[in-house]
């Protein structure tokens, strides 16, 4: 069910240059309860309005034409928009250009880009996301109807990096509100990562995306979006009141979600936390830790982790805590007694977001340090391919794991 923080019913705008494909996406999403599904018509005209806004922002002669993108809580856009329908695309049109324009020159909430990096279900074993894309989420088109993306139970392919799209737009709005009077504060301080023992764990690459020409720890939100590699393109300026906040809310969130969080060494989420510190699980059923909802629903001992939460837990799609301070908290049994054996009968699988016993897991080396050893679900054995979690349109049997080199531990 869609989040109640968003005006009801939430609008999901679908843009594919092939009308048949767009209708197919609409069909796939018909099971999503409470969503107002719309197909983008006269797309070239609508995109041109965004372009005019872009140009007008540079000239201080602001264009106030209405745009259908402004009303979209979620925009779903295909990458390949080179179709022959002259109203719906063009020889050089891409979903990435539309995503950039929609992010920077409209009020749309969450942007989902399809088929930019893979056209069929693919699990990226590097775990690091595509920060250069202005879409908030990049997936293959065949997964847009996957229930795991829409807050429903995970039964097959459900990468842990996926947010719950039903709550993503409201998180974006809350971040925008939070930034309203903080644009001139250092971005790392706004994100709650400014303490030296935390900021020192960020990598050069992570910091470089924030500011190419300033000390990253001092770069303000305004500077990050104005001149950082995740912000507006050179010569572009923010459009309309609140424009800077909207761009910053989305881009800083993606930086955290897809570049910082995968390492689990600066921010750590609940399933990875109980993998290291099982004593933090307040309940025997570790599946509670995979809840993307409020911190209270993750089944952790709140009194032990509460002091380590990120100041404003709206920046990523799941509850997270600061690993550098948490790992020194002597109230935690595994920290207090570092030489005792830790009981780890199950492992968290990144491709399906569930805990599995060792014989169901396959280790791989992610492109993050030092916590590079992670697990995905092993391949189906004989007779298993027509059963969960492998079977079905969203089953693991359809997933390509890339690059295979990362399985060589």
């Amino acid at each position, binding site marked *: 069910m869609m989040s109640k923080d968003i005006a009801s019913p939430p609008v999901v705008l679908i843009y594919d240059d092939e009308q048949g494909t767009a209708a197919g996406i609409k069909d796939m999403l018909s099971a999503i309860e409470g969503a107002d599904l719309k197909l983008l018509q006269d797309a070239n005209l609508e995109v041109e309005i965004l372009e005019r806004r872009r140009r007008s922002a540079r000239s201080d002669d602001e264009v106030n034409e209405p745009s259908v993108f402004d009303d979209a809580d979620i925009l779903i856009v295909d990458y390949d928009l080179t179709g022959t329908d002259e109203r719906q695309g063009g020889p050089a049109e891409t979903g990435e250009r539309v995503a950039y324009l929609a992010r920077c020159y409209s009020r749309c909430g969450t942007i989902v880009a399809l088929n930019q990096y893979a056209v069929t279900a693919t699990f990226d074993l590097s775990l690091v996301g595509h920060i250069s894309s202005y879409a908030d989420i990049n997936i293959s088109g065949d997964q847009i109807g996957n229930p795991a993306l829409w807050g429903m139970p995970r039964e097959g392919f459900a990468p842990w990096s996926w947010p719950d799209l039903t709550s993503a737009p409201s998180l974006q709005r809350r971040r925008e509100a939070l930034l309203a009077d903080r644009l001139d504060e250092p971005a790392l301080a706004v994100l709650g990562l400014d303490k030296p023992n935390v900021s*020192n*764990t*960020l*990598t*050069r*690459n992570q*910091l470089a995306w924030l500011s190419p020409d300033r000390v990253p720890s001092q770069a303000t939100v305004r500077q990050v979006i104005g001149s950082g590699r995740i912000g507006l393109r050179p010569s572009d300026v923010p459009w309309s009141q609140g424009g800077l906040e909207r761009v910053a809310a989305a881009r800083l969130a993606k930086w955290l979600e897809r570049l910082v969080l995968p390492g689990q*060494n600066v921010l750590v989420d609940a399933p990875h936390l109980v*993998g*290291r510190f*099982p*004593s933090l699980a*307040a*309940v*025997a059923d570790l599946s509670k830790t995979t809840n993307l909802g409020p911190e209270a629903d993750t089944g952790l*001992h709140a*009194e*032990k982790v509460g002091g380590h939460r990120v100041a404003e837990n709206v920046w990523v799609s799941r509850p997270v805590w600061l690993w550098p301070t948490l*790992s020194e908290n002597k109230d935690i*049994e*595994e*920290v*207090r*007694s*570092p*030489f*005792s*054996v*830790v*009981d*780890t009968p199950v492992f968290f699988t990144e491709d399906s977001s569930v805990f599995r016993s060792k014989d169901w897991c396959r280790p791989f*080396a992610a492109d993050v*340090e*030092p*916590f*590079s*050893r992670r697990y995905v679900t092993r391949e189906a054995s004989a007779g298993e391919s027509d059963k969960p979690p492998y079977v079905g349109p969203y089953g693991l049997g359809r997933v390509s794991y890339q690059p295979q*080199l990362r399985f*060589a*531990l």
Partner: protein
Amino acid sequence: VTAAHTPTDHRLACQELLQWLASQGKARRSQVQSFDVIATYDAMAVPYPQISDAELPALLNATRPSTDLEGWIYGPETGKAASSSTPEIVPAITASWSWTGSTPSIQIIVALLMAGSTAQTGLEVTAFRFENADDGSSHDFWHAQPTVRKAHRGEYLEGIHLPLHESVPAFPIDAVGPVGAVVCVLLSLYGSRWIENMFVQNPRLRNLVSPYLSELPVFASRIAANTELAEVSNKAEREPAPAVPRPRAVSSSARSGRRRRRR
């Protein structure tokens, strides 16, 4: 402990320790470092070639009875914590081991490269080898000794100022087996807090290595102290003192007995 573990268990523990060192070194290199350290990495790249990410797991493959890394693992820089006037060093480590004889043998070479912009014009290196007892010789105990070569009678290491006696002194080390020897290398470079932190961060490594630590006096006392501390702490949590206000107690069902079983 040693009898209860197979040779593969021993090698797996050694493998995890060295891979953790490599991953810590790689993580550190991705962060902001001093120019001196970065310049030293550049200068050491050819004489101390680093083993690639893809090669290391294959070379350390615990299912094989013997291995020789040939290349080097770069650890995080160290050597500055005790005194700010002490130069930083970049440790490079290579190892070989064999379980083909009657007792396992291991040799770990630790090259300590002085960090500095002058590294570009000439490396400044000291090196030690940590190795098993050599029965019948004067080194019939687990020990570390200065070295100028990569292996017995092998090629000279670049950057070491000769002459340097290679045989004495041979410092006794706490190890009674290969896992202990690797731990001693890390302990000598980074200290016990680093070792503890390694266990806190990596439960798999902790489970593989901790069974061997009680054989090392330096850790046996810490393990005993930690166990005692944990017992006192657990007892305090179970039996809150009535006169002193305490934070909200955690329910016993939530603790689920896991802690007691683990001890």
